[in-house]
């Protein structure tokens, strides 16, 4: 393999990893704060992609601009889902809560996926912007503008989330609730509102990932499971409880997948992440069930 194609593979892995990172961050946020595992997270990625697609189809709006519509839409959907479904299990404890959230979100997966199939049909959709084929060429390594844009926005969103969580009051309330919800409640934080906002924020992050998926790959109603699994792998790599750590872990997964696809065998590209995931889960279980510290 020439040095150029090596770097090309690396760069594409980086681009894919950015999408993994942003998708996983939303799931990690919900997992870390609500202590619930939302299997339907990939479905939210899928729905975000469809909103982006239909806005592009109807108004020809650039997908990077229409994020201004996509994000609030999924934020509202997140609020509604929290109110309708997740609110009922939020007061359960520990293992029971996780198990029930798993089951309920699995049911939601069925609902959302089949609803999307019914409304949008199973046809594969994608957004072809006018500059889809263009890109930067840096010493023989091609970087399409759409992918470069996705990575940049993913990076910006990560930084913005970092600022929000650590420097603003609502963000600190979220972190405090994640740390100890009883103490947070005693300190006067309305934790029900925190839970609702966090879930909606998770949905909004998923919608950003969905937009990137629609721009770079294609979109079908059944992509949800794949993205849930990818996000889960990334969370396990990052270590649970680490919300912002999901971004570098996502990049890592993207690069590892791309390189293993190029060096070992293209057929193993999809399974390598799952195998790493199983190994990490099995070899380091203690670090994954208990929050550090």
């Amino acid at each position, binding site marked *: 393999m020439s040095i150029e194609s090596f770097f090309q593979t690396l760069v594409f892995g980086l681009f894919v990893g950015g999408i993994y990172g942003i998708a996983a961050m939303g799931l990690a946020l919900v997992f870390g704060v609500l202590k619930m595992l939302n299997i339907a997270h990939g479905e939210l990625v899928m729905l975000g992609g469809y909103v982006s697609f239909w806005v592009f189809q109807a108004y020809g709006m650039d997908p990077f601009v229409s994020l201004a519509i996509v994000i609030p839409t999924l934020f509202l959907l997140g609020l509604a889902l929290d109110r309708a*479904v997740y609110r009922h299990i939020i007061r359960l404890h520990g293992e029971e809560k996780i198990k029930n959230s*798993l*089951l*309920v979100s*699995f*049911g939601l997966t*069925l609902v959302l996926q089949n609803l999307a199939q019914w409304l949008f049909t199973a046809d594969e959709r994608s957004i072809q912007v006018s500059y889809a084929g263009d890109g930067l060429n840096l010493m023989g390594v091609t970087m399409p503008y759409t992918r470069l844009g996705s990575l940049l926005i993913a990076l910006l969103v990560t930084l913005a989330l970092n600022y929000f969580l650590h420097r603003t009051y609502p963000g600190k309330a979220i972190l405090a609730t994640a740390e100890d919800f009883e103490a947070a409640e005693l300190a006067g934080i309305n934790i029900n509102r925190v839970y609702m906002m966090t879930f909606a924020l998770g949905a909004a992050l998923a919608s950003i990932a969905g937009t990137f998926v629609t721009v770079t790959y294609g979109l079908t109603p059944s992509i949800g499971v794949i993205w849930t699994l990818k996000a889960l792998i990334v969370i396990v790599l990052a270590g649970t409880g680490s919300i912002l750590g999901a971004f570098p872990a996502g990049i890592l997964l993207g690069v590892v997948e791309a390189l293993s696809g190029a060096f070992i065998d293209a057929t193993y590209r999809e399974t390598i992440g799952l195998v790493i995931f*199983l190994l990490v*889960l099995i070899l380091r279980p203690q670090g994954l069930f208990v929050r550090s510290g």
Partner: protein
Amino acid sequence: MRAMTLPRISSNSLRRWLAPLGILLLIVFAFLIPRQIDKQNIWNLFFLICLQITLGQSWNILAGFAGQSSLGTAAFFGIGALVTRTLWFGGQPFALAFLAGGFVAVLFAMLIGAPTFRLRGAYFAIGTLGMAEVMRITVSQKIPLISTMSGQMIAGYDLTSRYYLALGLAVTTTFAAWLLLRSPWSLGLLAVREDEEAAQATGVHVLGHKLLALFLSSFFAGLAGGVFAYQQISYYPSAPFSPHWTFDALLIAFIGGLGTLAGPIIGAIFFVVVREQLAVNLVEIHQVIFGILFILIVLIFPGGLVEAWERLRGARWIKKSSS
């Protein structure tokens, strides 16, 4: 999970005979009715119910009795189908291929089970789902071609023998689950399900009980795969690895009543019949309805139809005694 009840052994002598009598009637019914009506779609419907009862019981043994919510049933089902089909097409007698499918599924489960049982709760669920997905993707890439019966096999094909095999397996699986509940291990399983640490502290061999449940669960899921391989004329080898087999089993156990013996039977009959009805009338959204139904069951009736029925009966009994 909220409290789940294992079937109680009633002291009332009439009540004691009621359940076996009902089961006997059900088996006779299942044996005779398709034969009486003798229509292709009825055979198929009954076949599907029996296959789903087996999968529901298999999932229920692991998740309902031992408390290990696995999402990996599709892997055992798929392996059973793959091994049975390969050996059978390779010229081995079907009975041998069928049993081999079950045992290879067990072998795989034991290899993978010991390490994955170190995972708890949600991580066990995701870990087993990940494992099943690895299997599905690998099989779909290594064996991408559709598997079809030869002309000779199709000429000798009859649905009746397929159905009776599925019925036999459903009865055997239910019987095995019943034996397990009557066995000295049932209390250990219950203890592991309710509180692992407490079980360990009182001297229950936690891993041993989990492996026992996994053994039975994977064996019957593997055999169900063999039945699938025997019945389907042609399918993609990766099809039985699809996660929807796991999800069907899970739905069935939940709809019927998790941790009960009758649950998977009631759940499977309800699930298959309602699904077939909905699939005819509301093609696109029947899965949506099942999803909503499932969410409602988890939120409102965690014990499924069995619990709903008992609550109803309980309410009636209280009314009667107070009047």
